[in-house]
């Protein structure tokens, strides 16, 4: 027994050595090394994207924007995700990417303020910092430009209108959000609350906002609890993909959607923000009538373009600057150096098959 054991430690050492070859991830160069001389590396901008966490299809779609436009803009693209989505998990990733010699770091921050010091240190090394999809709300000075999905002020009104039209502008409604400290979610929920003060929506009553933490398990329990607590609930807005999919699952299991077996007073209507692939089945089954999202790939394309321009100093990160992206149209740097990359699309039974992300 004992003599056999030492054989076991060899594979571990080998594994550490070998897996380096298999798992390095790069999308344009054949080698990940910063200094590998290649014919075009002199002109290419090295951009690294850091999503909130690994294994999220939303960010895979966002990355596809970088990849599809890499040749057009002359970008050598790579990405690296932290294992978890907690506030500080991105700190070491940012340091590692700066050390790798990346010239631009595009980041979807997990926290609006825990990364300030780290980002400043990277900037001091000459790295251009761009936030994408989420922003450093309140700490905008620690990045040069924030690329956001769409005009946030439109999300509240559009979502409320979407739900209102489906329930005849009357009845109790609830919101299923992600985490209670997500700046995007809170901005949208604020927008919804403000919209609900409009006389048009005076008969719609927001009874509760619950948080599913973007986990299927918690989102499901919270939705079930909502239904138990508020027997007269008519509508739920879930402005997050995981939440929307979880709520759709609950409605489908309990058969509470309009027209389903257990539907009371017209049925429970569900809408929100989500990716089409996750909700195709629910939309076709009628559990979700309509929902919205932007195309995350747009964020990647705009961030990639801005990265190359800021790096080459062809563009200045200044409010009011206008620029044109070939094939995408014109954009403007707005208040707090925010650029809006796309706009909301409403998905319905009719059009959902046209989208694949």
């Amino acid at each position, binding site marked *: 027994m004992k003599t056999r*054991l030492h054989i*076991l430690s060899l594979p571990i050492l080998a594994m550490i050595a070998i897996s380096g070859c298999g798992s390095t991830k790069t999308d344009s160069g054949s080698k990940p090394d910063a200094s590998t001389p290649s014919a075009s590396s002199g002109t290419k901008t090295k951009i690294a994207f850091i999503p909130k*966490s*690994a*294994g*999220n*299809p939303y960010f*895979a779609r966002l990355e596809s924007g970088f990849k599809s436009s890499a040749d057009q803009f002359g970008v050598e693209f790579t990405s690296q995700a932290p*294992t*978890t*989505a907690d506030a500080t998990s991105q700190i070491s990733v940012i340091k590692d990417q700066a050390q790798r010699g990346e010239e631009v770091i595009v980041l979807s921050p997990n926290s609006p303020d825990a990364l300030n010091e780290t980002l400043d240190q990277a900037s001091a090394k000459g790295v251009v910092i761009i936030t994408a999809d989420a922003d450093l709300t309140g700490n905008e000075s620690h990045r040069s430009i924030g690329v956001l999905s769409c005009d946030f002020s439109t999300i509240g009104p559009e979502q409320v209108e979407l739900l209102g039209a489906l329930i005849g502008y009357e009845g109790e409604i609830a919101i299923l959000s992600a985490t*209670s400290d997500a700046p995007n979610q809170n901005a949208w929920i604020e927008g919804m609350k403000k919209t609900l003060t409009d006389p048009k929506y005076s008969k719609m009553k927001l009874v*509760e906002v619950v*948080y599913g*933490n973007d*986990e*299927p*398990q918690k989102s*499901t*329990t*919270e939705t*079930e*609890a909502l*239904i*138990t*607590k508020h027997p007269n609930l008519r509508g739920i807005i879930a402005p997050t993909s*995981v939440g929307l*999919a*979880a709520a*759709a*699952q609950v409605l*489908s*299991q*309990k058969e509470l959607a309009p027209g389903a077996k257990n539907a009371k007073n017209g049925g429970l209507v569900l809408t929100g923000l989500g990716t089409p*692939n*996750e*909700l*195709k*089945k*629910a939309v076709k*089954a009628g559990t979700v009538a309509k929902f919205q999202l932007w195309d995350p790939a747009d964020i990647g394309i705009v961030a990639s373009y801005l990265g190359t321009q800021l790096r080459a100093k062809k563009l200045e990160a200044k409010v009011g600057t206008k620029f044109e992206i070939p094939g995408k149209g014109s954009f403007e740097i707005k208040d707090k150096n925010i650029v809006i990359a796309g706009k909301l699309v409403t998905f319905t039974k009719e059009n959902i098959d046209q989208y694949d992300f």
Partner: protein
Amino acid sequence: MKRFIVPLLVIVAAYALLPRLFTADSTNSILLWLPLVLTVALGEFLVVVAGGIDISVGSIMGFSSMTVGIVFKANPSMPLPLAILVAVVCGLILGLINGALVARAKLPPLIVTIGTLATFRGLAFLIAKGETITGSYVPDSFTKLSNHGIPLGEVTLNWLAITSILCTAAFLWFTTNTALGRSIFAFGGQPEGALRRGIAATRIQTTVYALSGAMAGLGGAMYLSRFGQAQPGSAGSGFELTVIATVAIAGTKLTGGAGSIGKLVVAAIGVSALNVALSIQGISDDWQTLVYGSVLLVMVCADSFRRRSEVVV
């Protein structure tokens, strides 16, 4: 009856916290939690009785739910029993890895399963290849297992709950009617004495970790059926704590050798009711962790206090 006091207290606490738990709707919600908690807890129970611990069960659940999801994605018309078999086999294989490291390489269970907790979670990410399993890939017939079943008035005894009850019966039979099953208790109570009496330690330890893995694998399939989606990072993550809490509340002797499956069932009902009560009561997310930790602490202290005299330290 006296021995059931601690697990029963949890149920009473949950219902005192929230009278609304008596409604059919809440009972249905509890019945959705129960199979997950009970099934995985059964496996953990045997490991603890054998004097070990398995904290990789959450990661095994994650891996098996991802695997079943991926198989469904490739082959949506796969028969359901086959899907469940895939999950159980996945769990069994991972459980055997734990078992081999504990029983054959003689490594401490806590360290083995802390290591495999990370490794199995990593494997779930690897097989996922950056994707998640969404509701669109899981067939309706599979998710319906969690809300269809035998109707009892307004309450539905769903198929998952029935499965977990059948598993409980099987475990009860295994631990009382087979030599191997009974030897687990003997081994956990006195590993050296049992060894001396010639009961094969390797066989017992391999069995309990393999069974724990298989039950966690089944739990992964239940997770997918219950929630309709699975992400490599979050599926089953942290579930090991719920399960260990259940085993502890059931008054299982945590150093091994003693425990009752009957009390485990009561504890699982209590934990499920507590989960539902915390959500329905609208105890803000900010306070839930604190409440959950406090309840667990009180249970552990109360249970340990009863047998203070047995332990040094």
